[in-house]
């Protein structure tokens, strides 16, 4: 008995050590990455990784599958691009406007969508985000099919020139780390614990006296705002915001990234996003359509490894020996 407890606790600290070592290795890699790879490519991965992590905050920790996160990602891209191009704001203010806009959009969509659950929730978020898509197609300030082009990157805090690629990269990296940090803190807070308990047993959480709907809405708005952070960042990196970012395909992509990496894990969405973006880059030069591959990966994930790559590793014999637990 004592022996058993001793082993589990020591493997648990083993996982903790391993995790620390891995985190430091990843951090060093990210700092060195712009000198090893094409910086725009790495920045794209970071934006989508943050987007997927924000999406996973909702799906992984509350069990709500949103099929409309493109509205928050793409919406924020439009808000940020508009603020910086038409109003001449600095990048950090532009991003904050994007985040605020995405949060407001999340509040409206969330208030309607959380009235239903499960697959209904998925269909409702899809329909509402499609409505926002049509709004973006038609309204004047988003410039229809053209989108908002040549957005100036500007000077961060009015001081640091983001047209310099290295500056831009480290700004993106900083925002990414802050975003991931917020998500980590959120998930491990008492608020996050209540979300998990809602996911596991909603009735019981209600009977414990929690206003479940408020927590769901809170999580939804939080996820929308963080998706907006990623979207605003992407608009500055690529200097444009277009309909692609608000289209339903984008909502599908972020689901794929999360599913492939591992729903409900911290690094799963990051791994998934890196793989999907790399795949898209590889296929972009050939005339083979990405959707075929995306569709096949989706089907394979659902049929063969529902925990995702990271989740399956945690659940595997090696992962267990290292002290990881399959959930989280």
């Amino acid at each position, binding site marked *: 008995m004592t022996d058993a407890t001793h082993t589990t606790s020591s493997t648990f600290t083993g996982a903790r050590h391993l995790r620390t070592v891995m985190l430091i290795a990843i951090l060093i890699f990210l700092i060195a990455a712009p000198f090893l790879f094409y910086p725009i490519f790495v920045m794209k991965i970071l934006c989508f990784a943050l987007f997927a992590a924000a999406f996973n905050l909702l799906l992984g920790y509350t069990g709500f599958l949103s099929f409309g996160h493109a509205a928050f990602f793409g919406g924020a891209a439009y808000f940020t691009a508009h603020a910086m191009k038409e109003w001449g704001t600095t990048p950090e203010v532009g991003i904050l406007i994007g985040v605020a806009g995405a949060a407001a959009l999340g509040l409206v969509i969330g208030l309607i969508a959380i009235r239903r659950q499960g697959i209904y929730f*998925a*269909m409702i978020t899809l329909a*509402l985000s*499609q409505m926002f898509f049509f709004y973006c197609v038609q309204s004047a300030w988003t410039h229809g099919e053209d989108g908002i082009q040549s957005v100036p990157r500007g000077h961060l805090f009015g001081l640091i020139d983001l047209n310099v690629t290295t500056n831009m990269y480290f700004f993106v990296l900083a925002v990414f780390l802050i975003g991931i940090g917020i998500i980590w803190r959120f998930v491990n807070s008492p608020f996050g614990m209540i979300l998990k308990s809602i996911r596991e047993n909603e009735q019981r959480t209600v009977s414990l006296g929690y206003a479940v709907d408020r927590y769901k809405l809170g999580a939804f708005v939080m996820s929308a705002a963080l998706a907006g952070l990623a979207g605003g960042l992407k608009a500055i990196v690529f200097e444009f915001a277009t309909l692609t970012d608000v289209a339903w395909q984008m909502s599908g992509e972020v689901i794929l990234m999360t599913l492939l990496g591992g729903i409900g894990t911290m690094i799963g969405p990051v791994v998934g996003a890196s793989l999907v973006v790399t795949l898209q880059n590889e296929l972009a030069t050939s005339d083979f359509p990405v*959707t075929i591959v995306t*569709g096949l*990966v989706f089907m394979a994930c659902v049929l063969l490894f*529902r925990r995702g790559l990271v989740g399956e590793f945690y659940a595997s014999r090696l992962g267990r020996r290292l002290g990881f637990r399959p959930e989280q």
Partner: protein
Amino acid sequence: MTTIFGYPLVVWMGQLLLGLINGSFYAMLSLGLAVIFGLLRVINFAHGALYMLGAFVALLMATHLGINYWFALVLAPLVVAAGGAVVERTMLSRLYKLDPLYGLLFTFGLALLIEGTFRYFFGASGQPYAVPGALAGGMNLGFMFLPIYRGWVIVASLVVCLAVWLLIEKTKLGSYLRASTEDPVLVQSFGVNVPLLLTLTYALGAGLAGLAGVLAAPIYQVSPLMGTNIIIIVFAVVVVGGMGSILGAIVTGYLLGIAEGLTKVIYPEASNIVIFVIMAIVLILRPAGLFGKDA
């Protein structure tokens, strides 16, 4: 000339007709979704892709095999239904014990695969499908001009919807279906082959989508993208109607099609989103949907 709210009657009638046509497709597709969901507890995201598949099979039959519209109207839905049965047997049936969200994700992947494949081989642009000779031309109803084919689509879809409703509500097979929806284990213990019933149900839903596709082929351009444009609207229709009732799905489909058509007269800019707006209002006032029972 007669006018209503300052718009000529002809304009109203024209848009009403267009709305009825769109409504026919919404009704047939949401009916299929509701039938599949009722028994399989799967939201078939691939429904739009199957609709597109029906139109393409009819087109390919015409161009490569010289099969005319009337044979295609029977054969193409059968081809799509057979494809659906294979998918259900080999893959979808493994997902029933899991959270219904996995069924949604799987069929989403399937939709991407089908659409991507057709886009790869046929390009994204639409191809015309000729209106069959017997249904070409139109007639003057006095207050408006009615293309015969469009009238045919409305009649055909009404008949199909009614037939499916009768099949489910009034026949022995339908009673097995309804019983399996309530309690599959009990029905199985009475000696009914429930897995086969599930396969047939998915095939029926897929066939309906395929049939809608064939009917749509002469009206819209046959293009790989025709399915995705419609499936999101059909989802909204299903949310408005509530998935509890077959009749609810049919009625909501026609009503929302008409609502969309009439909006085109009054405020064309909003015609794309009017169904989503109605969905939002229904969700606020009556979250279970107009005909839904479950909360």
